[in-house]
C-alpha cells in the first residue's frame, strides 16, 4: 500500500485519521522536548555543551516544524496555529517529555538537573531513531520522506547523549547514583512515550508504522546496548498517557511560555 499525497490520504477517512494521529505524536514530542532544551541555554555544564545542545535543540524544533507542515498539508490548519493554539487535551506528546528540567524557572533560579536531561534525551533520541526508522517504510510517502530526512542528522543527536550516558555512568559514584536515580524515575514514567494511542491498531493495519510491541522491543534492545543494568520493573506511565491527551501542569507551563507572544495579538503578523 502506498499513498503519495495529502489529497489521496484524505480520500480514506479511516486512513487519514490514523495518519494524523501518528504525525501529531511526532510533532508534539519534538516540540516539547525542544522547548525543554531551549530553557537550558546558557546553563549547561560547559560552553562547548551549550553550543552542541543548542544546536540539537534547534534541529529538533526544525523537525517539529516539518511534522506540523505535514499536518497543515493534510488540512489540519496552519503550522503556527497547530503549535501554539491547540488545547492540552488534544496534545499528543508523551508526558515524560513535558516534565520540567528541575526546580525553578528558566528566567529565575533555574536549579536544573543535568542527570534528568541526559537520561531523558538519551531515552527519547533512542526511541526517535527506532520510530523514524520504522516510518521510513510507511505507506504514506510524504511522511516516509521526512523521516528519512530527519534521520540524516538525528543519529548525531543520539550519539551525543550516548557519550554523556557512558561518561556519567563510568566516572564518580555521585554521577552514577544521580543517573541511576533518574533512570529509575524514567522507568515509572516513560511508558506512554512508547504507545501509539487510540489509533494503534489502525496505524499498524494501514502500514503507517510497525506494531507497538515490536517498536518497544527494538527500543529496549537499543537502550540495553548502552545501559547494561536496566531497571528490572516493567515500564510504567505514572501520570497517564499523553498519547490519549492526558497531561500534567508542566505542559500548561510549557504552552503558556511557548504561546505567550503569539496569543498577545492574534490579528498580528509576526
Amino acid at each position: 500500500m502506498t499513498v503519495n499525497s495529502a489529497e489521496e490520504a484524505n480520500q480514506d477517512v479511516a486512513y487519514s485519521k490514523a495518519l494524523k494521529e501518528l504525525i501529531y505524536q511526532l510533532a508534539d514530542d519534538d516540540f516539547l522536548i525542544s522547548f525543554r532544551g531551549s530553557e537550558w541555554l546558557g546553563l549547561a555544564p560547559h560552553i562547548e555543551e551549550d553550543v552542541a545542545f543548542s544546536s540539537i535543540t534547534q534541529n529538533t524544533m526544525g523537525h517539529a516544524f516539518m511534522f506540523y507542515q505535514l499536518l497543515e498539508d493534510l488540512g489540519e490548519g496552519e503550522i503556527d496555529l497547530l503549535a501554539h493554539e491547540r488545547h492540552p487535551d488534544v496534545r499528543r506528546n508523551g508526558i515524560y517529555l513535558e516534565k520540567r528540567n528541575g526546580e525553578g524557572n528558566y528566567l529565575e533560579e533555574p536549579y536544573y538537573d543535568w542527570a534528568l536531561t541526559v537520561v531523558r534525551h538519551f531515552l527519547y533520541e533512542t526511541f526517535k531513531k527506532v520510530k523514524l526508522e520504522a516510518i521510513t517504510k510507511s505507506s504514506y510517502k510524504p511522511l516516509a520522506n521526512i523521516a528519512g530526512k530527519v534521520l540524516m542528522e538525528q543519529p548525531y543527536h543520539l550519539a551525543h547523549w550516548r557519550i554523556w550516558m557512558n561518561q556519567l555512568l563510568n566516572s564518580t559514584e555521585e554521577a552514577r547514583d544521580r543517573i541511576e536515580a533518574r533512570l529509575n524515575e524514567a522507568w515509572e514514567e516513560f511508558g506512554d512515550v512508547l504507545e501509539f494511542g487510540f489509533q494503534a491498531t489502525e496505524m499498524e493495519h494501514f502500514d503507517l508504522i510497525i506494531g507497538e510491541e515490536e517498536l518497544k522491543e527494538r527500543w529496549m534492545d537499543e537502550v540495553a546496548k548502552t545501559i547494561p543494568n536496566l531497571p528490572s520493573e516493567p515500564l510504567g506511565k505514572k501520570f497517564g498517557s499523553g498519547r490519549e491527551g492526558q497531561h500534567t501542569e508542566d505542559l500548561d507551563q510549557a504552552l503558556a511560555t511557548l504561546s505567550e507572544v503569539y496569543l498577545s495579538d492574534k490579528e498580528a503578523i509576526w
Partner: protein
Amino acid sequence: MYNYIEYGSSEISNDNIDDQEKYEQFMARIEVGEKIEPDDWMPEDYRQGLIKLISMHGISEIMGALPEKEWTPKAPTMKRKLGIMAKVQDEMGHGQLLLRVAEDLMQPYGKDRGDIMEDLLSGDLKFHNVFHMPTKTWADAGMVGWLVDGAAIISQTNMLDASYGPYQRALQRICQEEVFHAQHGEAIIMALAEGTDYQREILQESLNRWWPSLLMFFGPASADTTGSSKQNIMIKYKIRKSSNEELRQAFLDKYLPRVFSLGLTVPDETVHYDEAQEQWIYQQPDWNEFKQIIKNKGPRSKERLRLREIAYENNRWVRQALAKDQVMT
C-alpha cells in the same frame, strides 16, 4: 566587538635592552601589517590588553545570549523560534571561539577558562553594558538583533585587521554571522513596524528604552568622561583603528535614517545632523550611570550573573565526573 577603549591601563616600560630590540622588531612587524601569533614574542602590555579585550568580548557573547534567551521559546511563530534559536546558538559559539583565543594568551600566567569564569562572577571581568538591561517585550528581541548586533558589526569591522592573528581570524567568522543576526533582527522589526497598533507600540517603547544603552555601546568619547588620561594602547598596537566617538558617529549615520524612515523616533529632541561639523549632534547619555552599569550595578546585572552562578554550582558534580573521566582515560 564588545569592548571600550579604556583610558586607565598603565603603560609598561621596556628598559631591558634585549626586550627593547624585540620590541622594535615587534612594532616593525605590525607596522607593515604582519600578524602576531600566540608563540611570537609580544610586549607585556600587548598581551595583557588583548587578554582583557578578548575575554570581555567572549564573555559578553555568552552573557549576551541571556537577554535573547528570555524570548527564545516565546518567539511568536515557528519560523521566528527557529531563527532566534539559530542566533543564540551562534552567540554561544562566538563565546567559545573567543575564550579559546583568550586562554592561549593566558597560558604563560598559568590561567584558563576557570579563571575567566571566576573573574566574571567576582566582578573583575566586565561584560558589555547592553547585556545588563532588562527585556520586556518581543520587540526587544528584534531590537537586540537589529541595533545591538548592528552596533557590534560596526565596532567589529573596526578590528577586522587586528594585529593579533588568532583574534583577527576569529573576527572574520564572527562578523559573517553577525550580518545574519542583524538581518534576523531587522526582519522582526519590519514585521512590527508594518503591523498592528499594539506591535508598533511595543516597537517604539522598546527603542525608547534601548536608546541610551545604544549610545553607551561604544563607550565614552574622551578620557575627560572617565577622569583618567593614559594613552590608548589598542590603537597604538593596531588592534583597532577608530575612536569610540568615530564608531558611534558611524552607527548614527547608518541607523538613524532607517529609524526615521520606519516612522519611529528616538527619545532625544535635540538629535540632528550638523552639516558644518559633519557629525551627528545628540544628547549625551548619563555616563555616571554607564559606570555603574558596567560595575554590575545595572538593572539586570545581578540576575544575569546569578544564572551563571547557579549553573556553575549546580553542575559541579558534572565537572567532577568529567575530570575523573579524563584522569582515567
